């Protein structure tokens, strides 16, 4: 007769009876009865479960059928079936497939595809031929591929509109401003503006990610602090990286400081917004171009963040930067010979 082991003894205590879960002694009458009942039931389960077993011949047939099915299915279906038997593997495979789809399947987003340069020129002596010559010079300077001239409000006033393919506004802004200053020095009244041309495009996540690098061009010569701030703010908004950034531009001696802050910026996972401070030592910025690297910092350690910044800088040909990251605060010093 099969002997069922179950008793009140805790297998961890070899000497004598153990204790029940409540800590009470197990030799009370009620507990003895329960232990006896459990023992009896387990013994009954032992007999019942061993009753009328499936014959070994049946298992043999099962195996034979299984082998036959495997041979008939071929390697592809067998692999598919084996994957199906491992839910964790199938889940991982599905997740990977979804990730690839998300990265490769196109979706629509706004992208800056070029810059529209508007130069308003007015002068009492300005003729059609004269504005034509100015427009051609501007187009040549910008490398514009589309040029239109129209009359503006006022006598002898024209608006030259040029379209350039640059995704960033820096070069176009610098060239146009310099062109406008040159015209003013010749006695013309000139006003320039550069607006990004934004189009809805369809592309994948990779392409969208590359679009999030934004550049700003700082030209502070002959302009007030507030004008420079407006200029930088417009460039940041047109880059698509910021919705409503707060920009402060201050000059102190040889050092110019630009502070950019946007509480709603989704860089760094949208936690705590975005804030950065650029210090430019030396002469007043004149056509200085800054490219901002938008690095996903959430979930990265300081070392990983530093490595990521260094990698992106090196990709841009900057190898001698001093980078320090401590508690998520980033300090980058780039030594550039003038």
């Amino acid at each position, binding site marked *: 007769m099969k002997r069922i082991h179950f008793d009140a003894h805790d297998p961890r205590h070899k000497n004598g009876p153990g204790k029940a879960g409540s800590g009470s002694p197990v030799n009370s009458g009620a507990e003895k009865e329960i232990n006896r*009942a*459990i023992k*009896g*039931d387990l013994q009954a389960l032992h007999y*019942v479960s061993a*009753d009328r077993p499936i014959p070994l011949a049946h298992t043999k047939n099962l*195996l034979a059928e299984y082998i036959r099915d495997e041979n008939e299915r071929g390697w592809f279906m067998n692999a598919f079936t*084996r994957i199906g038997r491992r839910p964790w593997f199938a889940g991982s495979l599905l997740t990977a497939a979804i990730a690839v789809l998300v990265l490769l399947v196109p979706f629509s987003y706004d992208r800056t595809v070029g810059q529209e340069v508007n130069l308003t020129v007015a002068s009492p002596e300005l003729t059609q031929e004269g504005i034509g010559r100015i427009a051609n010079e501007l187009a040549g300077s910008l490398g514009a591929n589309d040029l239109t001239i129209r009359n503006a409000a006022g006598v002898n006033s024209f608006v030259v509109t040029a379209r350039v393919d640059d995704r960033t506004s820096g070069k176009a802004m610098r060239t146009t401003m310099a062109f406008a200053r040159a015209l003013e020095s010749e006695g013309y009244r000139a006003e320039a503006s550069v607006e990004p041309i934004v189009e809805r495009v369809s592309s994948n996540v990779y392409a969208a990610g590359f679009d999030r690098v934004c550049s700003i061009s700082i030209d502070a010569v002959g302009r007030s602090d507030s004008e420079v701030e407006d200029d930088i703010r417009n460039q940041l908004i047109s880059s698509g990286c910021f919705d409503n950034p707060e920009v402060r531009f201050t000059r102190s001696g040889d050092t110019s400081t630009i502070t950019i802050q946007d509480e709603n910026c989704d860089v760094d996972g949208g936690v705590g917004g975005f804030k950065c401070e650029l210090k430019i030592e030396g002469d007043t910025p004149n056509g200085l171009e800054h490219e901002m690297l938008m690095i996903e910092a959430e979930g990265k350690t300081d070392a990983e963040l530093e490595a990521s910044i260094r990698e992106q800088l090196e990709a841009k040909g900057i190898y001698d930067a001093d980078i320090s990251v401590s508690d998520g605060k980033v300090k980058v010093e780039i030594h550039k010979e003038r």
Partner: protein
Amino acid sequence: MLELLAPLHDQAQATGRRLCRTSGEGDDLFQESVLRAFDKLSSLRDESRFRSWFYAVLLSRHRSRVRQGFWRRLLPLEDELEQGREPVGEDGGEWEERHLMATRASRALATLPAPQREAVVLFDIDGFSVDEVAEIQKTSPSAVKSRLSRGRQKLRRFYERLGMEGKERHGDEANSLRCARSST
């Protein structure tokens, strides 16, 4: 593989039934384990350890079924009588009583987490030693002892509750401990 399986065929099949709530589920578990063991046979290095290896496969499939089939708990327990197994001869009454007790034990075991249930079944019913259970469960003997202790505590609590319910129902044969006591 059949040569290796033959000596423990019936015993492992019975273990499958003990781990599950019904004989049908237990048979399915055993057959799945046989096929899985066949697939993984190349990983068996020492044929003398086939017994513990096969039981480890059985427990692996059991855990997998527990994870996948939580909805099974919502299904009613099958009555062995409905499966065409009927009491025979003069021992019909004893047969029925034994099946009621076995059903109650299955219900009690079903309340345990899978590792505790396996430990109780392998040690208390199948007669494996603590070291053997530890090898099959791929854990330490102390962990097995802990599982046994906790599993038994839970079983006792289940029976305590059952006893109280039985008293409240005044003679509910399926749930009271009366038949268990009288059989011992």
